[in-house]
């Protein structure tokens, strides 16, 4: 059993905008469901990593991929939990285009009682031409509800 799509959308919006770092980066929730999640970060001048090219910083993509992985895991939630990243491996295939925002989609392909395994990719214009891919493992911390 997974969460109702309407409720999932609410959680997704909260994750993308209610977490201080996500809000500060200007994350926009795109979708969540069936172990997948997608978030967009629009380009902004204070997020540039290379002043000569105006390309968005690798660190922004790192935060986006990490956060999108968390959203994908949450889409499989049957009980409230928070996630903590264990490890995160990112391959940077190429820089994003100058002044381009980035979209990420993550897939939680295996969820055990305690660990979630997730893959993710990020692209600027064409999904088939990613700027970065990620592989991550997360620990699940159940939130005790009274």
């Amino acid at each position: 059993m997974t969460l109702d799509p309407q409720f999932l959308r609410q959680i997704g919006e909260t994750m993308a905008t209610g977490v201080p770092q996500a809000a500060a980066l200007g994350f926009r929730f795109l979708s969540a469901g069936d172990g997948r999640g997608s978030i967009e970060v629009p380009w902004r001048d204070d997020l540039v990593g290379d002043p000569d090219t105006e390309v968005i910083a690798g660190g922004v993509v790192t935060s986006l991929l990490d956060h999108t992985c968390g959203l994908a895991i949450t889409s499989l939630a049957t009980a409230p939990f928070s996630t903590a990243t264990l490890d995160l491996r990112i391959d940077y295939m190429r820089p994003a285009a100058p002044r381009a925002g980035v979209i990420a989609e993550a897939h939680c392909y295996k969820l055990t009682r305690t660990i979630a395994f997730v893959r993710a990719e990020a692209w600027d214009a064409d999904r088939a031409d990613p700027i970065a891919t990620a592989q991550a493992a997360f620990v699940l911390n159940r939130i005790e509800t009274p």
Partner: protein
Amino acid sequence: MTQGELDAFLGRIPYVGFLGMGARLDAEGLTGVLPFAPHLIGNVMLPALHGGVLGAFLELTALARLALDQPQARRAKTIDVTIEYLRPGKPVETYARADLRKVGRRIASVHVEAWQESRDQPVAALRGHFLMGEG
């Protein structure tokens, strides 16, 4: 590279300003410094720093360390990073130091470790490969 040149290197990167990070040079070498700010939080309940923020801080410390090593070269480009999270990042100042495992003609391999209150209790570590800029 002097402290002023290091400040200038980091000061040119807008995203470094967004994070609020800096780096200082002393007898021990280069230390990345990330003062706490509320917008760096990724988990409100703990509270804890965002995993992506720690990853970005580690990566930028590696890039600053490479710039210190090769001040004449163009900026190195990140090829891949593996970030290991060891403890929740508390809402306090964070430090990082990079170890250049190998700097070749084209590729550099760098390890970075971040800590907060105590150097022997790291919060996160990074292993990364970087493409060296041509001089």
